[in-house]
């Protein structure tokens, strides 16, 4: 199952580098430390058999990151990015976001950010599925 209180942010591969720069600008504007940056080489690129290749980062929804996530929504909408939010008991996946929906998502993120405890991103991984 997906880690709780996290958001998966996806952008088309062609803008992955640009996206990281944009995120960094927001991070600087918010006065946060460099450890909140998203690195290109930590994005997981998923190239599905029938869709556009996207790069994905999984970000915990905590008070520090919520403003950055809301800040980047406009960019995601313009570049046909996607978000996939996992909250306790709820999951929201948005693939075809329009500007008129932006407020709805911002509200949801605001609530989630203030509710969420500072989440440890919970890497309780198991190694039973090693690659062949």
């Amino acid at each position, binding site marked *: *199952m997906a880690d709780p209180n996290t958001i*998966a942010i996806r952008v088309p591969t062609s803008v992955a580098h640009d996206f990281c720069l944009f995120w960094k600008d927001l991070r600087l504007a918010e006065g946060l430390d460099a450890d909140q940056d998203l690195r290109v080489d930590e994005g997981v690129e*998923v190239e599905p058999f029938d869709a556009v290749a996207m790069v994905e980062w999984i970000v915990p929804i905590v008070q520090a990151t919520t403003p950055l996530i809301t800040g980047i929504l406009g960019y995601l909408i313009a570049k046909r990015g996607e978000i*996939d939010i996992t909250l306790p008991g709820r999951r*929201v*996946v948005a693939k*075809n976001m329009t500007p008129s929906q932006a407020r709805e998502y911002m509200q949801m993120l605001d609530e989630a950010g203030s509710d969420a405890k500072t989440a440890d991103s919970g*890497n309780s*991984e198991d190694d039973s599925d090693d*690659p062949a």
Partner: protein
Amino acid sequence: MIPRDKWVLLKRSLRRRRRAFDVSSNHRASLRRMLGMFGDREQREAMGLKLLPISSMQAASAVVTVGGHSMAVVDVEQANAIEFLLTRSLWREMPLFSYIEFMIRAAESAYDADDLEFAYRISQVANARLKMHVFVKGEHPIFPRPMIPDGTLVEVLQGDVVLSFIAAHECGHLLHRQDIHGFSRLFDFIEEAYRQTSIEPSRHAPGGRVMRYFKPESVMKFRDGVYDGDASLGIKARQFMDAREQEQIAEAQADAVGALAATYAAIDAGVPVSYLFLVLHTVLDAAEYFTTLRRTVPALPRGTRSGAIPFRPTDLLVRKSALLSLIGAIRNGSIGVDESIASYWAELNDQQFAYWQELDDEGRLEQIALRPTVLARGGVHTGLQGELPPPLSKEEVVSGYGPLAGTVLFNLAHLSAPSSAFCIEETLDWRPDTGMDGVANGFGAALRDLADLSAKMPPERGGFGVKDVMRDGSDADFVEVLRSARSQVRRRKVDENWHGGFEALFGNL
């Protein structure tokens, strides 16, 4: 090996997929056999060829890359989904049974996106259609499920031919990324075949030339349930053309690897070459139906009959064409393959092969390749508008639109389909010899019901969440309910309690 910190990131990403079933030991054995085609374990390590089998509701395989390390993630659910359609198609089943497959897949996708009410409503409609069939054609609770079974398909399924194709296709993408030499001649051949066949004379604008593999993206517009024309992105697509070309060639190259793997699996399973030839085409079609379903359903207007639904052009024609080129080259020795593969394909009947070449030459292969998109458009149009307006004649279009006639003819093609193509209730008397292809018909009809349902849903999302479902039953029970129509089809018996207690939560539409 992938470094541990990167592996952790990959696993987190994969964990977001909802588990469907298990990867069986048979699946794993088939995949190991397939991997043998690339060399032994050491050689594969050196190539950077890594494969992870999973079973998720997304039913979609992918190549995942992090920090320069790539891996093929093979979703066995994708093979299962395609195999269901393969059976419906090759055993000539009624459109209703393909329809149910498509509805279940749509319900699972909705569930995967936590869109629970929509998922439930889709199951409700699917079950209602099944009940209709019982009352009209069956004797409650038993219903007929006519089919023309053959043992060869069983061999194909047991031999995991489809899984081998899909998994090797993804490995083909890995090889492409990593520029591995063993397949470079094969890849070069496919690229050359693509370039030689990509331009042809225009059929509508005399003296003009057409790029066969490029169709404009068309956005279908609706205003209050009435079709309001298409916005076709033609010239604007020019900037993306080179990238698209690369994508199409890569798809065809991956298919070539898939076809080789499927051939080995077929030889092992004792499947005759003429049957494999048919299976490969049907697999490509089935993948196309699912792709179109996956792309179209999330874009349907929700709670309204106004909106814009994009239809992106797909690569089915490129892939079918490339498959023919590949097999032709294997047969005439212009591409080097193992002796077992060469002699296997040499046995394919000349006439059967020539027939497909003709389809390609006459432009009929193109029509076949565009059919899933045309049916999706027709289904959406019928679902939102209620019924289709009469078609325009070819002369009207050509004289009215000049050089754009080709695009407009395509955009209006669904108007010429029989109404039963989009109305499952009109297909209960379908016969394989007189009706349209059962899977195609089931697909068009499913899109209609999905578009109609989406329009009737309440506009705000986030009504029902997993927590509501968990209160009334378990997550797994809910998923069983979504799949209930399929179990009833297997048993040829309706189950009045298909809703598993969840009707209290959702009520009736």
